[in-house]
């Protein structure tokens, strides 16, 4: 493991380490963080790997400072990330909102544990899903990805950096304790095979550049600090010059664009893995570690002759509304297992719109959902009158 950013090869590695390697392969050279179980291993590996790659690891005084520091580093033109878990994620919320409002690319990995509060620090949970969507104040769109294997921790971290650079937005990796701590086979591809996206630079000279004047895709090119553009960046409602303007029209324009740049690009942002969907009469919608349980349950159901299918949400925010709406019209039931008291299931219900029953398989945290529990739910659903 000499001085290399991309450790091409096959490894047996835990998810936290894989996240770290994905970040380094993406060109991340700044990490600010604060120790917290079960995300600590990301920081630990970063502290070892970054200095030798010419990057900076800094352990801040808290998660608020960590989040602020990565935003500062990003404006310095360096790809930056932090990692945390529930309590730290809560502390980051205000500055995540600042990152959204100022359109600052960066990546946050939340290795979820069970809450509320200190909860079960060493045990799995998926209770921060709505916090990822709505945790910062005001209205905005966010991008969140949900890995369900160590390989996906690597792959999705690269995707998170690419999406953050492309859409100028903090991207959240919503991992969980099991994915973070589980050791699995991972293949790190050759550097040449890893596609990277870099933030779009302004084409206009400093005098003519408007920091928040978007291109056709609703995203504005980004000048970094020190590039000679003398930008002004504020979390106040601002116009295309980046200057604060305190009125309803500017607010409408700014918020609309923050929403449109994600919503109008949703088809490229949203990814799901669909298994046995074509002929499925019961479909499980799942994400993270629960998608692993679900996959096993769906296979077992198929072995019993039940036509079950799986939608594994790789992108959880923005939510794949169209797909769920479409599938809901042609199945007996949708089933959602999640390690919380029912969060993403609200989205599934909303999109199903009553077209089919939506059943929640809930677990409050501390262990994964057993595939058998999901299998039972699938079998129960078969009894529902078909379409």
């Amino acid at each position: 493991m000499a001085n290399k950013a991309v450790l091409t090869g096959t490894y047996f590695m835990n998810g936290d380490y894989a996240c770290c390697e994905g970040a380094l392969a993406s060109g991340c050279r700044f990490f600010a963080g604060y120790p917290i179980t079960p995300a600590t291993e990301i920081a630990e590996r970063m502290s070892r790997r970054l200095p030798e790659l010419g990057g900076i690891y800094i352990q801040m005084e808290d998660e608020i400072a960590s989040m602020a520091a990565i935003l500062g580093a990003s404006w310095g033109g360096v790809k930056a990330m932090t990692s945390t878990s529930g309590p730290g994620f809560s502390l980051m919320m205000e500055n995540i909102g600042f990152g959204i409002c100022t359109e600052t690319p960066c990546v946050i990995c939340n290795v979820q544990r069970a809450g509320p509060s200190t909860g079960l620090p060493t045990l799995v949970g998926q209770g921060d899903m709505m916090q990822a969507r709505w945790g910062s104040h005001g209205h905005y769109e966010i991008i969140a990805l949900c890995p369900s294997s160590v390989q996906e921790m690597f792959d999705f971290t690269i995707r998170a950096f690419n999406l953050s650079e492309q859409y100028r937005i903090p991207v959240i990796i919503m991992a969980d304790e099991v994915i973070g701590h589980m050791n699995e086979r991972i293949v790190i591809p050759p550097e040449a095979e890893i596609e990277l996206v870099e933030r779009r630079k302004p084409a206009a000279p400093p005098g003519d550049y408007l920091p928040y004047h978007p291109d056709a895709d609703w995203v504005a090119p980004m000048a970094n600090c020190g590039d000679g553009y003398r930008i002004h960046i504020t979390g106040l409602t601002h116009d295309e010059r980046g200057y604060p303007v305190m009125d309803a029209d500017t607010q409408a324009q700014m918020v609309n664009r923050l929403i449109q740049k994600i919503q109008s690009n949703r088809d490229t942002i949203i990814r799901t893995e669909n298994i046995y969907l074509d002929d499925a009469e019961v479909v499980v919608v799942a994400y993270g570690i629960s998608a692993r349980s679900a996959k096993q349950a769906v296979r077992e159901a198929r072995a019993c002759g039940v036509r079950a299918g799986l939608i594994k949400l790789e992108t959880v925010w923005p939510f794949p509304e169209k797909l769920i709406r479409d599938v809901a019209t042609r199945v007996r039931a949708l089933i959602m297992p999640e390690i919380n008291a029912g969060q993403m299931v609200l989205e599934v219900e909303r999109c199903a719109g009553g077209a089919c029953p939506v059943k929640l398989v809930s677990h409050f945290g501390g262990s994964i959902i057993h595939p058998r529990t999901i299998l039972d739910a699938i079998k129960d659903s078969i009894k529902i009158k078909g379409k």
Partner: protein
Amino acid sequence: MTTKKARETLPQHPMETLLRSERLPHIWCSGCGIGTVLGSVMAAIQKSGYDQDKIAVVSGIGCTARMAGYIRLDSFHTTHGRAIPFATGLKLARPEIKVLVISGDGDLLAIGGNHFIHAARRNIDITVICVNNLNYGMTGGQLGPSTPFGAKTTTSNSGCPEEPFNFCYLASACGAVYVARWTTLHIRRVTNSITEAMQKRGFGFVEVLAPCPTSFGRRNKIGNALDTLKFYHERSVIRNDIDPKDAPMDFSSHIVLGKFVDTERPTFIDNYQQACRGQMSDWPDIGSKVTPGNQAGQ
């Protein structure tokens, strides 16, 4: 003459290139001291001779924090209290950029107090300028970490029940390599101190006491802006090089000003280079072998 016509006919202001003049008039109240500090900051930037494309201003939230919006430099008006950690990330990512943090006393030392002490401890190479107006001005004059004991604010109607921080003592104790305190009456000294702090490697801290006639002055006997400046004139005592712990701001007798700290110490990057990219000996690095004869307590 209309403002527009005046702009066309009058000669350019000497600070024009450093001001976002299209954003004027500014939001500060009549008699506020922040504009004076802005003048000093711009003068110091010109005096320092640094490439202005490589200077960034970072602020938090509050009246002083709005300064970032008026300076024609890369400028970041961040969240309340978080200017220093934002600046830390920016500086470490782009070491060639000179980073100034300019914010108020409440922003830097109440909500941002934890970041302040840790950035000083790490000796992050940034210059922190604190405009201290003894209260939260933007929200209408509440007590803050600098409000003197007994002073009236909207949240201490019968007098502030808390003791304030001595910011310079705090900065010095936490490891700042440059510490100075002035008032907006001492413009030349403010400018010099900001210039010196910018030219220094490491965490520099310049505190500038400023009148806030609207929110603070009128509720206390300190009065309007002119009265406040007269008060500074009467009560200020310059004591350079003394330990800032002996430099309190006692408004009933003397306000001690001066350049208190001007020293050298490795910056975060210096230490990072040695510890993380170089050869670091084992910790603790005990020089000579401890023998029973020279052990403490024997």
